[in-house]
């Protein structure tokens, strides 16, 4: 069933229409790919879904609940994790601290207790181990390589055990081995029931990993379906034509 | 210096302080009698002055006044036959530092006496400290009413009390002129504003009306709106509660606004001698009045010497002497007279004696202390710039002879004989 859905979203910046009546549904338990030429509104859609932008009209639903006007922190608390196109970690904090940030706590009293409770620590180390950064746990995150930072970002979202993870170009600027590692991790997490929505230009990666692919074009959904279907759909090529062909193959 | 560890700061204190003190001592032996070391143990007096920050201008003048007094006093046998040595510290115009400074004078330097800092704002905390150690706080600059309203028994102001300084003029006005509208503008200041408000109260009672009344904040830099408000009122008489710098700007703005009151009196500014004439231009000074507690030419004891000494030490002429100088000088004079009378360096005895209603003389005239410590003996003067000279014009029938007052100021820039 639909876990996260957008319905008739419209978003304008001044004159430019970034999203025009965009409707999409992402299935629970699936790894959804979200592709489309540059400027087709993928990232804007992410921003709308995660509370960074409020749409001019339309609504966002998560497990049937309307979250259109929630703030980013509320969205995250509800179980929607998200990474950014340009990795954003906390450079001056150590890796282990980074991984603790997303661990949610309710109530002022809890907030005032020590930042690393045993269970949180276990979870933190677990997810660090999961992405293979345990070694570096005491290093300031700023000193990590770009790829490692991507993994870290991935790890600290995992800690909050979100129902769905929105990954904005996870493959960007990551070397093949690391990418393979990352793909494996995504698959493994998906087995534990985490839903994924991945914006990616690297078709290899997308087609290899996704069960379901949606194509965006000029701010609205073009088609969605199984990778192989989408891959051969003329409309998609059409959408990409004139834009950068290398992205398609 | 090394400030690596706090402990070291503290431990080095005494050492360095010693050095510092001897340095200070050296710097003032010039003022002490020539054979200081042969002479009996000197009388030490601690004074905090504002050498930097908001009050630095007056702070330095204050220091000059005290220094000149010490020189003069030593030339006249010092106090109790012992040479006077002044210890100065700068408080950077901050009460925090004033508190520390006076504690240092009293507890580390173990000075025999203290004298007041510049300004009402700093005199308050200073007198608290002095009071705590049962020291007398004699001062000549900083007699805002709030200093005396706190029931401290150890504060004495040798200058005429702030509230009364403009009243001499107000009385003359009420006596000689018919009631008419008057323009008031005053800085928001604990010393200045009471002067204006008190005069205003007096004149209101005599039927003079308020053409305009503006209070402006101390940090004002653009006086044009205030000046134009005063100008627009068209009042023939303007009474301004100004500090030196803004007094100058205010006059400049009047000139620009072509506002030419028949009588113009400023709480302070015109009494700053050369500073004033340089800033507003000598040709614009004609007829401007200012209340003051001191006559440069007066024959009060020590005045001639003070003026001579000042010009010898700091140059300039008789009109270039800032009013803070005699005010500080007078504080010293009264201290010397009282102590010599008491015959000991006991501050307790001194305080009792000052309260006894005894009369003292000073370069500013007679001094006698009311129970609250204000000087009830003095009658404030009013000065007027006439033909580039700074001459006393009020009070009539006082001890000093005064020149006739110019009741009609000429147009700006038309000082006769300039």
């Amino acid at each position, binding site marked *: 069933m639909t876990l996260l859905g957008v319905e008739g979203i419209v978003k304008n910046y001044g004159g430019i229409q970034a999203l025009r009546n965009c409707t999409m549904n992402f299935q629970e338990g699936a790894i959804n790919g979200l592709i489309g030429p540059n400027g087709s509104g993928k990232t804007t859609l992410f921003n709308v879904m995660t509370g960074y932008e409020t749409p001019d009209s339309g609504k966002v639903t998560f497990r049937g609940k309307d979250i259109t006007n929630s703030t980013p922190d509320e969205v995250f608390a509800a179980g929607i994790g998200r990474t950014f196109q340009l990795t954003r970690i906390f450079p001056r904090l150590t890796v282990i601290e980074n991984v603790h940030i997303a661990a949610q706590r309710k109530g002022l009293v809890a907030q005032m207790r020590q930042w690393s409770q045993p269970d949180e620590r276990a979870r933190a180390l677990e997810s660090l181990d999961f992405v293979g950064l345990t070694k570096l746990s005491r290093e300031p995150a700023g000193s990590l390589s770009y790829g490692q930072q991507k993994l870290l970002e991935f790890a600290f979202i995992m800690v909050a055990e979100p129902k769905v993870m929105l990954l904005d170009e996870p493959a960007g600027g990551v070397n093949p081995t690391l990418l393979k590692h990352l793909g494996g991790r995504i698959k493994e997490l998906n087995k534990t029931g985490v839903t994924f929505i991945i914006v990616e230009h690297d078709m290899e990666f997308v087609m290899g990993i996704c069960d379901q692919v949606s194509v965006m074009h000029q701010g609205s959904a073009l088609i969605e379906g199984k990778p192989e279907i989408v891959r051969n759909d003329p409309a998609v090529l059409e959408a990409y034509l004139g834009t950068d062909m290398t992205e398609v193959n | 210096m090394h400030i690596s560890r706090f402990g070291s700061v503290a431990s080095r204190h005494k050492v360095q302080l010693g050095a510092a003190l001897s340095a200070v001592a050296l710097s003032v032996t010039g003022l002490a009698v020539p054979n200081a070391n042969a002479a009996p143990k000197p009388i030490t007096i601690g004074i905090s002055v504002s*050498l*930097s*920050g*908001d009050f*630095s*201008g007056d*702070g*330095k003048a204050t220091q000059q006044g005290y220094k000149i007094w010490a020189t003069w006093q030593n030339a006249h046998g010092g106090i109790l036959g012992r040479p006077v040595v002044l210890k100065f510290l700068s408080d950077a*115009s901050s009460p925090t530092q004033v508190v520390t400074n006076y504690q240092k004078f009293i507890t580390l330097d173990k000075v025999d006496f203290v004298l007041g800092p510049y300004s009402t704002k700093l005199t308050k905390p200073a007198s608290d400290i002095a009071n705590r150690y049962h020291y007398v706080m004699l001062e000549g600059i900083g007699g805002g009413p709030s200093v005396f309203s706190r029931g401290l028994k150890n504060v004495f102001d040798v200058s005429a009390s702030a509230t009364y300084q403009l009243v001499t003029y107000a009385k003359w006005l009420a006596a000689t002129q018919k009631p008419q509208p008057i323009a008031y503008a005053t800085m*928001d200041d604990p010393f200045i504003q009471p002067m204006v408000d008190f005069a205003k109260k007096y004149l209101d009672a005599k039927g003079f009306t308020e053409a305009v009344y*503006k*209070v*402006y*904040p101390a*940090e*004002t*830099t*653009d006086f*044009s*709106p*205030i000046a*134009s*408000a005063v100008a*627009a009122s068209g009042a023939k008489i303007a009474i301004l509660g100004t500090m*030196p*710098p*803004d007094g*100058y*700007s205010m006059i*400049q*703005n009047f*000139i*620009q*606004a*072509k506002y030419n009151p028949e009588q113009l009196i400023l709480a302070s500014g015109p009494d*700053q001698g050369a*500073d004033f004439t*340089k*800033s507003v*231009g000598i040709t*614009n000074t004609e007829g401007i009045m200012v209340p003051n507690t001191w006559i440069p030419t007066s024959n009060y004891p020590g005045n001639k010497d003070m003026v001579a000494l000042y010009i010898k030490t700091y140059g300039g002429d008789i009109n270039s002497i800032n009013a803070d100088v005699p005010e500080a000088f007078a504080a010293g004079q009264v201290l010397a007279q009282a102590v010599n009378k008491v015959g000991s360096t006991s501050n307790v005895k001194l305080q009792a004696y000052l309260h006894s209603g005894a009369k003292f003389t000073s370069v500013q005239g007679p001094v006698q202390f009311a129970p609250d410590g204000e000087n009830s003996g003095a009658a404030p003067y009013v000065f007027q710039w006439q033909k580039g000279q700074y001459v006393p014009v009020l009070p009539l029938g006082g001890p000093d002879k005064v020149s006739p007052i110019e009741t009609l100021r000429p147009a*700006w*820039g038309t000082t006769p004989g300039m």
Partner: protein
Amino acid sequence: MLVLQAIIEGVLVGGFYALMAAGLTLVFGVMDIVNFAIGALIVLGAYLSYSITTHFHIDPFVSLIFTTPLMTALGMVIYVFLIKPIKTNKVVMSLLTMFAVATLIEGILDICYNSGFVQIHASYINNSLRIGKLNFPLIYVLSFLLSAFLLSCLYLVTYRTKFGRSLRASMQNPVAARLVGIDTDRVSMITLGIGIGLAAIGGMIFGTTNAFNASSSYDIISRLLVIVILGGFGSVGGALVAAIFMLVIQDVVAVVWSPVWGSTAFYMILMVVLLVRPQGLFGKKGVRAQ
């Protein structure tokens, strides 16, 4: 009538404040530096003009020919030796450094000029143009014209020259600017030079309209900061509008109500405006969003 007079004076004085603020806002925009020393530097400029006019009997406006280059050089020196070395936490470190510089300057001036109040003089300083019932203090008119002239020069420089392009580039995105081969260090150095050079001019006018001493700077700095923020960082035009706007309101409140509330209004406006437009009147939104 009085209000009209106040408005006109507000506009004239506003032009002068804008001149003093222009340097500040440029430096703000390009280098993320809150030049806390601007007050002290203005006083320094005033003293320089004062010395020149009194010793060589030169017209204060002419004295600028000497003081401005001098101060510009000073600005560059400050950049090279004090600002450039700052690596971490630029915003605050530079602010504190400039504060230290201000303290230093005040101390030096205090010793050189012995903290009596002085004022710069010229024959015409007390004159004023009278039109109908209104009159315009000549010095403010001159300073306004000078400001207008300099500000338009500044505008041309920023929008019509190569340097201006690199300047705006480094304003909007230093990293990118560096990537396209702009020597942002050089740009910053020149900018701080210009900023402080302008302080020399502002200082001369300040010195002719106010009696000043070494510690006069405290009265200036806060207002300039407010003007710069209100106008929006890096926007010289914004600074001009903001300055005039603020001064007019302040003067009007001062004449119809009371000067003390005039200056309160001055700061209140800032609060209100920023609640509506956090980026100031003319600031570009998110120019430096993280």
